[in-house]
């Protein structure tokens, strides 16, 4: 139901955005955008895999659906984005005719700030660098693990970010139409400081047997470890800008997490193809 709602929202917004009457000439992407504010609505599908050595040495894999909303501000000199994403998946392991399933829900929030570097470089290239603060939390339910069926972990991470954007707008039009402004960009996030918030040595907490409920009971034995996680994330974006400064973005994103200095490592990776509607809210 929620997927249908998102689908139709995207369709309606597409109709709104493509009926705009503004005209623009083929030109440099950044000059075309000016200093614009966007609401980014994104839906995607991909492959996720995870392994939590605290409960299993086996990988669980499956198709994941990802939905995201963010507010972004883009200009030649800076990109600022704040938003959250929700990923849902049923990851499976079926080895030795022994099937098990881990229902995964992931919520992540982010705030990123990128600023232009090499300002006097090529007109068609734009390089930015900066940082991203990201918090990701997983809820996993794997009933085959009996008393250890529920797994929760969180990873607050500060990333260092590099982004290269290439304006690939055609110089000449086909059939006399104005060419659409297009760009291709690659973004790399590497964790600088990352903490893991995970179960302690025994994986299970004793909250329920000492009559503690709520978060106290659930997370009583959790431990925070600074520098407890390494993470790498990359995104390849292909963006088509419409004449009214709305846009469509097609992306392939990959991210991976691995805990370190932990009692038992946690490993998780996602590959996602996603489509994003960039809905312009303000042009400066």
């Amino acid at each position, binding site marked *: 139901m929620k997927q249908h709602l998102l689908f139709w929202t995207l369709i309606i917004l597409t109709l709104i955005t493509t009926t705009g009457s503004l005209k623009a000439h083929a030109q440099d992407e950044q000059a075309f955008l000016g200093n614009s504010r966007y609401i980014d609505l994104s839906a995607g599908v991909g492959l996720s895999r995870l*392994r939590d050595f*605290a*409960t*299993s*040495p*086996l*990988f669980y894999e499956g198709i994941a659906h990802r939905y995201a909303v963010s507010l972004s501000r883009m200009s030649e000199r800076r990109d600022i984005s704040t938003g959250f994403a929700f990923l849902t998946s049923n990851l499976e*392991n*079926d*080895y*030795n*005719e*022994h099937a*098990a399933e881990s229902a995964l829900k992931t919520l992540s929030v982010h705030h990123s700030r990128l600023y232009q570097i090499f300002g006097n470089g090529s007109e068609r290239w734009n390089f930015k660098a900066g940082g991203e603060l990201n918090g990701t939390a997983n809820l996993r339910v794997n009933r*085959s*693990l*009996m*008393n*250890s*069926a529920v797994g929760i972990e969180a990873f607050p991470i500060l990333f260092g970010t590099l982004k290269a954007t290439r304006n*690939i707008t055609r110089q000449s039009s086909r059939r006399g139409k104005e060419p659409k402004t297009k760009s*291709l960009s*690659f973004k790399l996030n590497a964790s600088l400081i990352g903490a893991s918030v995970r179960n*302690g*040595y*025994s*994986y*299970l*907490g*004793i909250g*329920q*047997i*000492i*009559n503690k*409920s709520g978060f106290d009971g659930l997370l009583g*034995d959790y431990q925070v470890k600074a520098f407890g996680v*390494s993470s*790498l994330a*990359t995104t*390849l974006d*292909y963006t088509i800008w419409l004449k009214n400064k709305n846009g469509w973005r097609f992306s*392939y994103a*990959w991210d*991976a997490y*691995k805990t370190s200095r932990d009692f038992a*490592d946690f*490993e998780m*990776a996602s*590959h996602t193809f996603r489509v994003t509607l960039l809905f312009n809210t303000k042009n400066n």
Partner: protein
Amino acid sequence: MKRIIHLSYIVVGLLFFSCESALFDAENESKDPMKNFDYLWTQCDEKYAYFDLKGINWDDVKVRYSAKIYDGMSDDSLFKVLGSMLNELKDDHTNLVSNFNVSSYGVLREGKDNFDWRIVEDNYLPRRFYQSGPFSHDFIANGQIGYIRFPEFSGTVDKKNMDFMLDRYKDTKGLILDLRENGGGAVTDVFELLSRFVETKTLLYYVRLKNGKGHNDFTEPQEAYVEPYDGIRYTKPVAVLVDRGTFSAASFTSLATKALPNVFLVGDTTGGGLGLPNGGQLPNGWTYRFSISQGLTLDKNNSFENGVPADIPASFDWTNLKRDEIIDRAIDELL
């Protein structure tokens, strides 16, 4: 330009996959019998909570059971070896689960059989006794005592059910709570029940958790309290009936009664099960669980894992199938 775009997609895609392989450890799926044996033995060695109390030499267990592992052994044979190894822990919170078998110790059979529900139904309860949620109950001993049978901690102990029962038996001289052959379940029920039998916030027991690889590496003991329910409570004497089949959450309840002055245990020693069982998976996909915590008495003794002793020992006389000697003993105490 198109070629460059396509090429960049391929290069970046390959880069992602190779990064993932470099970042993560290798695949660990394996049907190799020795690898699975080692994995399970090590998990228990580093996390099981009761080696010392039970006097188990786990290294000796490794020597004896690894000798039974051989290349090419069938899954059934491997299961028997690993399941038997876990049964060395003598703990019903320990199981091995495959898609063709489940291992368990069976602590119930270590004691004498002291319960037959049919004897209770035929000789103590009226034909149409009350059933309120998970409880079967009615008046016994000429209406002087309320009898409540609670067969498992189903997580469904309900305030309305409890209110109804305790209000119904408020004029009795005492209550019998029958936990015999109650294998446990949801621990939340323990506190729902006990909150009806206390007048002040009461320290019931302590729990400590494994926090290191050494057999005696534990966290500091943490207190378990129960607070009085803000409503109908029962303050007269309560006899809790127990036997070797009283396990896990039912055993926790039995342990807690030691801190409650108006509640006492009648019957046989319980089956223990004061450890919280932790679940995991082997490289061949089978799953297992075992205890990773200790329940401690108020003087921080962990020996009740071997069974919480009854305050008033009593056992069945199977030559007379019309009497439940344990109920009779409880009635004697309450009247």
